[in-house]
Structures are given as structure tokens and as C-alpha cells.
């Protein structure tokens, strides 16, 4: 179930984002200060990150030795060492990657406000518009609680319906948290594959919805809205120091919410890693079971979790013989479509369009799942 908009909401809070713009000397001082602190911080980050693996192995061995000296009933501690090492290594690794990437993406996102994205997409034709919308979905700060105002904002700027959907599919599915976790636990290839297939699903599903000409399946009140263009908020200029602060706020906000899911997810993953026998899941979630992809997607649709909670579990499942495509399909359907999101979208979409939206995305994910099981 929906926990919170943990991954997609960047809510700035507290800090005075615009206050600094007042004096340029002040700005220079802050730029210098962030530069002087930032570079040593990055170097320190790198050294800590590089020494995590040997340190985790050492810590796990010593801890388990200590435990088994006191609790003789533990017996053979091989599984325990393996689980503890997995936990000690993966938790700080994923959290450190998360902090760095959320900060970097936060800075990028400070350039892409929803207002600017709307301006870019306004009047774009389909096809090119679908591609652009899916790409912008990655970098535009998006929160499912703003999905409806954004949806209306796009339509009133004459962004075609299908293009709007490309954005709404890509924004929650392809995000930095999913990419960091996939990179950290599976390597860059799987992360790249996830990102590109996620984008392709968003583009093609949006394009398909556009082809189906379902514009009259919006709720009636949507058509009556006239947005006074003068009312559209134009953002104040940001200095570079403001953007750094935006990034830091994103870290505080997102990592502050997500860390607990990462730890719980990795703990569950560590348990599976240490104790479930190799190949155990091959018969039910392996490539041989053709029905496993659609079943995984059907199970995943109503569930909502953020990527942070689900990926560590997914990683352990794969290790025990679940097929990559099946597991990716499950993950995508959990992250991309959820019951709470359809409830929010129901305010603007008539039931038929919601059904079509869900079905098109689900079919896209199932195809990707089969494709992976064939390729990998």
C-alpha cells in the first residue's frame, strides 16, 4: 500500500531558497563556501565508499565469531555470516549512493519545474511529444498528490492527452531511487535496461492512448476550466547556491523518508540471501513458468511500494532462481500503477479511460517481462 510519496515528492522546506538572491556579493560568498566544502566531501565520500566492502566483511566475521562464542547453539555460522555481511555491506552502500544521486538529481531538477515542463510540451505534436514527455518525466519534480493539477495544467496548455500520459507513466516509474538501487544491487546494465524499457513503455503506452482518441472520457468539469495564462506562476531566478540548497533539501526530504524502507528491504533480502537455498524459486518464478510474468504483474498492480522497499527484496529473489524479466515486471507494476493513484486520477478521468490506462501499461510491462526472460 502507499506509504507516502517518498520517492517522487521534492518538497522544499525551511531554508530560505530565494532570500539569498538579494545581494550578489552574498551569492559569491555562498558559491565559494559550497565549493570549498563540497570538493573534500566528495573525496571523502569516494574513500568511504571504496572501503565499505572489506570493512563489512571484517565486521560481519568478527561479530558472528563473537556471537557464536557466547551462543553455542548457533552451530554452523556460515549462513549467518553470509546474511550479516550482505546487510552490513549493502545498507551503507545503497544509502551512500542514494545520498549522492538524490543530491545530483536535485540540482538537475531545480532546472525543471513543472511550469517549465508544461511550457516545453505545450503545442508539441504526438510521437515527438511522447518521447519528450517520457524523458521530462525523469527530471521534473513530481508528486502523485499533484497529479491532478498537473494533468489539467498540461491539457489547458494543449498538450495532447497521449503525451500527458507518457509523462504521468514515466514520472513515477523511472526515477533516481529505482536507478540507484538497481545499480547498487545488480550493476549498471540492469539499471540501464530498466531505465530504457521504462521510458519505452511510457512513450508507447502514451502514444497508444493518444491513438485511441479518448479525449471525451475526461470528467466534464475539466473542459470548463479556463486558466488565465497571466496567473501562471513564473519562477524566480535561482542562483547556483540556491540549486545546491535545493539538492541538499532533496536529500533531507527523500533520504529522510526512504532510509527505513531501504534498511527493512535489505534486512529481508539478507535473510533470503543467507537462508533460502539456491534455485529454490526457479520452479515458480523461473523462466520455465510462462504464466509467472502476467501473474507477477497482476499481483503488482494494486500494490504500491516505493522502489526503495521493493528492490532489495527483488535482488534476493533473483539470486534464488527467480527470472529477471518476471521480477522486473513485478517491480514495474508495483511502482508504476497503484490503487491509490487510480483513485486520484479518477477525479479527472472517466472509468473507461482509467481501465484503458491500466490495461495499456500492464500489457507493456508484461511484454517487457517476457522480453527480458528471453534475452537474459
Amino acid at each position, binding site marked *: 500500500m502507499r506509504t*507516502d510519496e517518498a520517492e517522487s515528492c521534492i*518538497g522544499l*522546506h525551511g531554508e530560505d531558497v530565494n*532570500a539569498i538572491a538579494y545581494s550578489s556579493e552574498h551569492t559569491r560568498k555562498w558559491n565559494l563556501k559550497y565549493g570549498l566544502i563540497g570538493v573534500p566531501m566528495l573525496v571523502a565520500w569516494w574513500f568511504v565508499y571504496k572501503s565499505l566492502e572489506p570493512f563489512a566483511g571484517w565486521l560481519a566475521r568478527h561479530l558472528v565469531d563473537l556471537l557464536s562464542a557466547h551462543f553455542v547453539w548457533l552451530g554452523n555460522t556460515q549462513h549467518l555470516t553470509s546474511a550479516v555481511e550482505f546487510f552490513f555491506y549493502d545498507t551503507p552502500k545503497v544509502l551512500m549512493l542514494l545520498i549522492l544521486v538524490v543530491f545530483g538529481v536535485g540540482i538537475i531538477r531545480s532546472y525543471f519545474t513543472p511550469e517549465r515542463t508544461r511550457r516545453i510540451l505545450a503545442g508539441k505534436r504526438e510521437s515527438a511529444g511522447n518521447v519528450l514527455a517520457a524523458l521530462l518525466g525523469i527530471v521534473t519534480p513530481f508528486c502523485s498528490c499533484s497529479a491532478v493539477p498537473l494533468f489539467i495544467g498540461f491539457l489547458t496548455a494543449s498538450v495532447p492527452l497521449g503525451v500527458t500520459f507518457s509523462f504521468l507513466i514515466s514520472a513515477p516509474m523511472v526515477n533516481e531511487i529505482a536507478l540507484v538501487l538497481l545499480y547498487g544491487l545488480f550493476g549498471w546494465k540492469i539499471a540501464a535496461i530498466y531505465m530504457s524499457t521504462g521510458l519505452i513503455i511510457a512513450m508507447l503506452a502514451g502514444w497508444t492512448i493518444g491513438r485511441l482518441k479518448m479525449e471525451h472520457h475526461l470528467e466534464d468539469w475539466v473542459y470548463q476550466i479556463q*486558466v*488565465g495564462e497571466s496567473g501562471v506562476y513564473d519562477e524566480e531566478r535561482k542562483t547556483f547556491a540556491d540549486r545546491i540548497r535545493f539538492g541538499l533539501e532533496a536529500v533531507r526530504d527523500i533520504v529522510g523518508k526512504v532510509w527505513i524502507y531501504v534498511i527493512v528491504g535489505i534486512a529481508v533480502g539478507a535473510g533470503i540471501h543467507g537462508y533460502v537455498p539456491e534455485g529454490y524459486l526457479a520452479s515458480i518464478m523461473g523462466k520455465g513458468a510462462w504464466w509467472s510474468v502476467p501473474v507477477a504483474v497482476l499481483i503488482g498492480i494494486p500494490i504500491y511500494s516505493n522502489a526503495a522497499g521493493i528492490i532489495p527484496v527483488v535482488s534476493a529473489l533473483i539470486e534464488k532462481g527467480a527470472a529477471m524479466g518476471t521480477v522486473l515486471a513485478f517491480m514495474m507494476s508495483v511502482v508504476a500503477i497503484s490503487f491509490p493513484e487510480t483513485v486520484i486520477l479518477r477525479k479527472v478521468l472517466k472509468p473507461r479511460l482509467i481501465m484503458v490506462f491500466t490495461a495499456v501499461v500492464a500489457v507493456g510491462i508484461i511484454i517487457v517481462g517476457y522480453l527480458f526472460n528471453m534475452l537474459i
Partner: protein
Amino acid sequence: MKIKVLGPGCKKCHETEKIVKEAVAEAGVTAEVEYVTDLAEIARHGIFSTPAVVIDGNVKSTGKIPSKGEVLRWLK
């Protein structure tokens, strides 16, 4: 002065309302703070990301929780 805090009712929106009310009290201005959840009205203001703050018809911020310092500057 008429202040509107707009948002469909998420946690951030309520926090924004709280900060605006605190700022109004601190600045000692007479202002009416209204919390708007009606999606049609939010859309009419040309707001695409919430929470948003509108003072006397002018959109002051969207998509973030403003700081109290910012709100105090708008109230001047």
C-alpha cells in the same frame, strides 16, 4: 489581505497552511487564510504543483513548502 493555501490535502499542504498562519500571526497583519482543496479552483489559478500559496490573487509559490521567512516577505 486574502491568503489562499491550495492543495488536495497532502501532508505538505497542511504544513504550508500552518507556516502561513504562523507568519500571519508573527507579522501582525490582518489576513484571512483559506485552505482550498477544490481541484477546479486550483487549476483556475494556473497552479500545476501543490502546495501553492496565493495572496490577493497573485501566486507566490508552488510545489514546495515555503519558509516562514519567505511568507513574511510576501506579507510586507
